[in-house]
Each structure stands twice: as structure tokens, then as C-alpha cells.
């Protein structure tokens, strides 16, 4: 494969940034959800969401 020094950083950067941001959101969500009573988690209380 040619241009590996451009292809791999582009793919690696994209996947790592997505993964780290998703991890940050999950952890931040857990931190905040533990501090808000369930009855006030309006957008999380619908059974089909």
C-alpha cells in the first residue's frame, strides 16, 4: 500500500478522536446521572428511548 504515512494517521486520528469523545460522554453522563433524581431525568425516562 502506498501513502501509508498519510492514510494511517488520517484513519487513526478519526477513530481515536471518536472513541475518546464517546468515552468522555459516557463517563460524564454517569457522573451527572448519579446526581439527578430519576424523576428529573425527563429525556431518559421514556421506556422506548
Amino acid at each position, binding site marked *: 500500500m502506498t501513502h501509508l504515512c498519510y492514510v494511517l494517521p488520517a484513519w487513526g486520528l478519526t477513530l481515536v478522536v471518536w472513541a475518546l469523545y*464517546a468515552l468522555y460522554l459516557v463517563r460524564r*453522563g*454517569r457522573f451527572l*446521572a448519579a446526581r439527578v433524581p430519576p424523576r428529573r431525568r425527563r429525556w431518559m425516562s421514556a421506556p422506548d*428511548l
Partner: protein
Amino acid sequence: MNEPAPSVADQSLDSGTSDTTGSRTTFWLGLVVLVGVVGVATLGLFGVPADDVQADAVRIMFVHVPAAICTYVAFGLTAVGSLMWLWRRSVWWDITAHAAAEIGVLLCGLTLATGMLWGRPTWGTYWEWGDVRLVTTLVLFLIMVGYLSVRSLGGDEAATSTRAGVVGLVGALNLPIVNQSVNWWADRTLHQQSSLTDGKIEDLTLFTVLLSIGVTGLAGLWLIIHRFRIGWLERELRAADLHDALENQRLEAHRFRGPA
């Protein structure tokens, strides 16, 4: 003796629900995204043949093009949310605008970075300041970073949302300029014009591009749902903290005055 009102944290102890922003929908959505990412990576890195002109540098297209298209969608959503806040004072849309802006900035940053990595082997340079597509995209990125900065300033919540909403709409004005820059100033850009619909792309390559756009769109949706819920929880916490503070102050004042 009067006890202080129980805090929100105390009230949450009796909750029987799971303390996450996840749900059944986001679980299945996340699973589909993971499978999709494996599919796109397999096709994009190994399945699709190298391009006659760009050789293997064309494989960057499968991360660059979806990031660029989803940037437009995310900032478009920010503009709609901003408009709905300014027009109807809709908190739901305000939080959605903020969530979409954060993910849009991430996508726009990736668009710029992967575009530079694509430009070096294709055009012979990472960056060209005279190129209208590159510069207008950078301006869009900076405007939306400004949007997030305004959001983080704090102060009165409604005023912050209004200021951010104006910035969000200004950013949206730049969207058609970025998109059409390769047509309006074709002689002032190294960037190619849109080639998705001209019928010149080989079938498997086109399929992989479309698949990557779909998977990135679903990943963006997953992120926006989680980011929206975080925004909602942050708002609830701020409201609850204010309520607790006022309640404690009221009890303190009552204690200070003593029994009537």
C-alpha cells in the same frame, strides 16, 4: 430544630434506575455503529482498489468526506436549534443546538486534519492560504469554536443561550459559502468539485463512501443523543442547586428570626 432540606444528591440515593445517559435505543445504535465501522474499515482499507491518480491516498476519502458532510448537518442542526431558541425560547432546541455544535466542531476539526493529510500526497501541500475551500472551512471551525466559548462563559443562562444562538446563526451563514466555494471560485482552489454524483467513481468505492457517510451519521446521532442528555442533566443540576441554596437560606433566615 429545623434540618436543611435534603440535597439533590441525597434524593437520588433512592433511585432504582441505572445512572447513565444510555438507553436501549443508544445501545442498539452503538452496536450498529461498531459493526458499521468494522465494515467501512475493512472495505476502505483493504477492499476498495487503489485509485489510478491518487493511488492509496484515496482511502482517506472514507474518513474525510463523511466528516465534512456530517459537519454540515451538525452545524445546520445548531442553526435550527439556535433559531428555535431565539424565536420560541425552546430549551429542548437550545440544548440540541449546543450538543450539535460540540459534535460539529469535532467533525470540522477532523475534516480539516484529514483534508490536510489527503492534500499532501494529492496536491503536494498540507495547506494553502489562498485556497477558498480550506480557508472558509477554517473560518467556519473558528466561528463554531467561538460558539462553544460563548457557551462556556457562564452567567445568566438565557442570555448565554441568546448570545450563542446569534453566533450559531452567523456560523450557519458560512455553510453555503463553504459548500459552494469550489464552484463560485473554481480558479482559486486546489479542492476538487463534488464528485459523488458525477458517475465517475467506481462502484465499490462509491458504495464504501456512502456506507461511511451513513455510519458516521449514525455515530453522530449516538453522540448527539448522549450529549443532549448530558446538557439536560447539567441544566437540572443547576436548577436543583439553586433550589437547595434558596431553601437553605430560607431556613437559615427562619432560624435567625427565632420562634414568633
